[in-house]
């Protein structure tokens, strides 16, 4: 990324793996930040020609329009199954399943768990924004206790709908995943850590090591009813205490 010219160099330039266009995301949405991190990693590892993004159903449904490499849409929750097929048929490709919390931990829980359990050589990026963003802010499996959403107008009541599900901890009970880490984009330092985790997840795949799972605590300022910086602070103050950041497994 360090493009040199005569009298200056870029400290930060648009990654080649990112398409130069305005996304449909709301102002301040965490999806945009994670898209950039993924594109930077794909560039740095030199795998753009081999990369395939599997898009979920959710706000990031059009991610293949923003990534400057191949893409494939999966029906809601089925990204791990589609990614499995793509990877098994094209073992040299680098397959990334990018999924929201509704996609991965509600309708697609089965696919997510079994792809991880089979140890598929794919990389999953799990965007936990504690809500169904695309459909207008309904409760997700990861919605926080007492969090107000369109379907929990009095706040999530665990005695009614259960406690928020911790994806990393759940998958960490399985034998075959090689890398499980939870990170966040709520500030600069953690954003860099998120990039590092994504890089490790893709590297594992290049080396044929197996299944990597990176959970990113992200923001949905629109459906949370907050300004973007308030949303970032809410991740730090409300989500992180329940969803501890850090590495769960690095084999």
């Amino acid at each position, binding site marked *: 990324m360090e493009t040199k010219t005569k*009298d*200056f*160099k*870029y*400290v*930060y*330039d*648009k990654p080649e793996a*990112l398409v*130069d266009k*305005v*996304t449909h*995301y*709301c*102002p*301040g*949405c*965490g*999806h*945009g*930040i994670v898209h*950039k991190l993924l594109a930077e990693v794909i560039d740095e590892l030199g795998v753009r020609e081999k990369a395939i993004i599997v898009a979920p159903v959710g706000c990031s449904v059009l991610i293949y329009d923003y990534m400057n490499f191949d893409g494939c849409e999966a029906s809601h929750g089925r990204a791990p199954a589609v990614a499995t097929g793509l990877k098994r048929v094209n073992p040299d490709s680098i397959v990334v399943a990018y999924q929201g919390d509704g996609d991965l931990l509600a309708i697609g829980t089965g696919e997510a768990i079994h792809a991880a359990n089979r140890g598929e050589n794919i990389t999953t990026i799990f965007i936990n924004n504690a809500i169904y963003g695309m459909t207008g802010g309904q409760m997700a499996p990861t919605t926080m206790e007492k969090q107000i959403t369109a379907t929990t107008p009095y706040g999530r009541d665990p005695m009614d709908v259960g406690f928020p599900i911790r994806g990393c901890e759940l998958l960490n009970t399985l034998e075959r995943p090689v890398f499980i880490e939870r990170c966040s*984009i709520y*500030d*600069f330092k953690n*954003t*860099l850590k998120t990039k590092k985790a994504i890089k490790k997840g893709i590297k594992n795949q290049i080396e044929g090591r197996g299944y990597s799972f990176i959970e990113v605590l992200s923001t949905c*300022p629109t459906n949370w009813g907050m*300004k*973007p*910086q308030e949303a*970032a602070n809410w991740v730090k103050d409300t989500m992180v205490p329940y969803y501890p950041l850090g590495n769960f497994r690095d084999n």
Partner: protein
Amino acid sequence: MRGKPIIDTAKCKGCELCNDVCPVNIMAMSDTFNKQGVQYAVCIDEEKCTTCGACAIICPDMVIKVIKYEQG
């Protein structure tokens, strides 16, 4: 001047995340509006830019690039 952010103001959605992330507080929002109808990110003191790249990395919309001038 060590370097500076280069801001594609037309693309800015006005989220203000760069304002908070800048360690030397030189990012602010414009008084005027861009074609998207939002106040966009501006750098109010390029002299102070450390070229850390934080604003560019946090920007969800690829609005900001950061350049560093070569020595001499």
